Each structure stands twice: as C-alpha cells, then as structure tokens.
C-alpha cells in the first residue's frame, strides 16, 4: 500500500483516496463489471474498482447519483445541489466528499469564498438566507433520527424554492448520506 498522507482539515484541493480492502484488479474486469462502472474510465479508480465487486448495486447507485446531480433541465440549480452535498459531507465529516462537492459548488456558483467558509466554519456559517436554508435542511436530513421537518420546508419556500426544487434538496442531501458512508468506511483520503 502506498504512503497515505491524510488531510486534517476540510479543503477544496483535489485529494486522492486509498482503499482499506482490495479493489478488483483491472485485469479481472469483465463486461458485467464494466456495465457496473457505467463509465469505462472509472476502471482507473480504486474506489470504483472496489465497489464494482457488486456491479449491479454500483450501476444503480451511479445512475441514481448522476440524475440527482446532473439532470438540470429543470429544478434546483446545480450549484445548490452541490451545496447540499458539500454541507451534508461537512456535517457527517467526510473530508473527501466535501472536497469534491465544495469544488463543484464553487465552480457552478462562483462563490468560492462562501463555500470555503462552509468548510472552515462548519454548517453554522452565515452564507446568506437562501444558502443557509439549503444547508440547514441538509443538516436536518443528515441527523439520526432525521430532524427534517415543516420548519425546513417553510424556510426553503420562503427563500424561493418550489416543491420540485425542494425535492432536489431532499434527493441531493439524502444521496450524500449514502456516499459519505462508503467513502468514510472503506478507505481514507490522502493529500
């Protein structure tokens, strides 16, 4: 195993990820596995070659993920879906996931400093009322037992989200409760 240099703070820098258990060797990938990877280029990633040990679950997970975040024909702007992902990851403590989705949030919103404040100060950072409402809803959804309630919905509506956009917040934040648990428990980030 190569040397791991784990980050100790949240960052928007690009990080690596090192698996704690054995990914499937690239030479052993069959067409069933490539179907699970969805994008063939993902065969280069340890993370995806680990998850591809259950190809059907990985394929369904990946397609769920892509539609929730990339289908922007309507609904919540991409920047705010990424904000929900970054806030969930910040709250659960997934430094790797937070780095990826904080970068996306910065790219799509052009508000890199605000995104950095979320990472530095945590989910209590004041990012303006619309982003605060999205972060608060994401945090409430990340809690166990789930704390998301009528107040979160009223607040999201007050800052201008319609029900379809609120569903995008619910989907995006909920999905990262899936992603965070995989990235946090099967390996670790490395600078």
């Amino acid at each position, binding site marked *: 195993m190569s040397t791991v240099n784990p980050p100790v703070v949240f960052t928007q820098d690009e990080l690596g990820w090192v698996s704690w258990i054995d990914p499937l060797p690239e030479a052993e990938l069959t067409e069933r596995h490539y179907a699970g990877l969805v994008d063939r280029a993902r065969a280069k990633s340890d993370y995806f070659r680990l998850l591809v040990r259950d190809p059907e679950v990985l394929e369904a997970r990946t397609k769920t993920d892509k539609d929730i975040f990339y289908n922007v024909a309507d609904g919540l702007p991409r920047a705010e879906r990424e904000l929900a992902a970054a806030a969930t990851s910040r709250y659960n*403590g997934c430094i790797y996931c937070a780095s990826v989705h904080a970068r996306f949030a910065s790219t799509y919103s052009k508000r890199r400093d605000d995104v950095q404040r979320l990472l530095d100060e945590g989910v209590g950072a004041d990012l303006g009322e619309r982003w605060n409402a999205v972060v608060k809803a994401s945090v409430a959804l990340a809690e166990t037992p789930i704390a998301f309630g009528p107040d979160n919905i009223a607040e999201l509506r007050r800052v201008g989200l319609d029900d379809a956009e609120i569903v995008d917040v619910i989907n995006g934040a909920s999905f990262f409760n*899936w992603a965070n648990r995989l990235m946090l428990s099967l390996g670790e980030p490395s600078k």
Partner: protein
Amino acid sequence: MSTNDIIDTLAGIEPGSALDAIRARRLQARENAQKSYLSLFEPIDAGDFSLAERAAVAAFVTGLHGESPVAAFYREKLAANVDGAPLLEAIKAEIERGKTSGPYGAFPAGPLSVEDKAGLIYRVSAERKPGLGNRLVAALEHAHLLVFRPRDAASADMKTLLAAGWSTAGIVTFSQLVAFLSFQVRVVSGLRMLAAASASEAQS
C-alpha cells in the same frame, strides 16, 4: 418481476399526485433507486451476504432511525424470511439498546479535533451473541458505526469484519446496503414531510 416503486410506496405517493409528477422529472434517479433496492434485496447472487442477513441488518439500521413505515417494512421482510424470523426479537432488542443521536465521532487529530463529539460505542449484548452468530454480531456493530458515527471508521474495522467471516465482496455489498438505507429512509421521510406540508397548506 414488476414491483411498485418502493420509495413511492413507503412515502405514500399516489399515482397522479403532485409529488408523483415531480418524481417523474427525475425518472432515472427514481428507477435506479428502485434498482438499487432490488439489487440489494433480490440479488443475482447472495453467496457472500445471505438474504436473512440482509433483512436482519436492514431491520436494525432502519429501526435505529426511529419508528417509521420504512422500519416496519424491513421488520416485516425479516419476519417473512425463514432463516430471518427467529432473529426478529433479538434485532428488536438490539435496536432499543443501540438507539442514540448522530452524527458523532472523532475527526482526524488536528484543528478539527475541537469538533469531536463523544457518543455510544455500541456492542451487541453478550446474551444475544450466540443466537446472532459471529458474522451478524460484527455486522450489527459496524452498521451502528455507519449509521451514527461514520467518521470514526478505521481500517481496523475492515479487519474485524474479515476476521468474523466476511469476504471483501460481502463487505462491499453490506456497506452499500447500510449506506443505501441511510439514503432511502431520508428520501422517504423528506417526501412524506413535503406531502404533509402541502396538504396542511391546502387546508388553511
């Protein structure tokens, strides 16, 4: 096999309703959340992680989130499995022992350590270990970590699962199952909350 969409069923979303139309705009996500569920609970090959074990872990994980239609659904799935039904009472008792509030746990040592939050380190009760067996004992303890304190996860936890008889492929599917349920229970809860908010608005 044609199955009603499990999230729609658990969230009480009726065909033709406003939320049904909204969910239809993310058709790929809706269909693949369903495929995720089917791949986990009706897999092609359950050799590394039996159906009874899947149902037991699912009942435990969703029960830890508190009583809900989702928790009831997975308890029924466990009760309906021939090898799972005898585990039901033990799982229910362990849910009660494991209930707490998350997320908590430690960050990597450094500036984030001020945010470390202590909490329950759950272990299966000694009296129920023989009935559950080594594999499920290790699985329930790791599932509790994944639910409440995922940031505490360490490479040693993988060794614990391997030592308890889990294969690498089994660990992947088991981790996906717990993580997927963490998603599913939240989507269902969020959609139910949104439907209720819209209904009370329509009445006022």
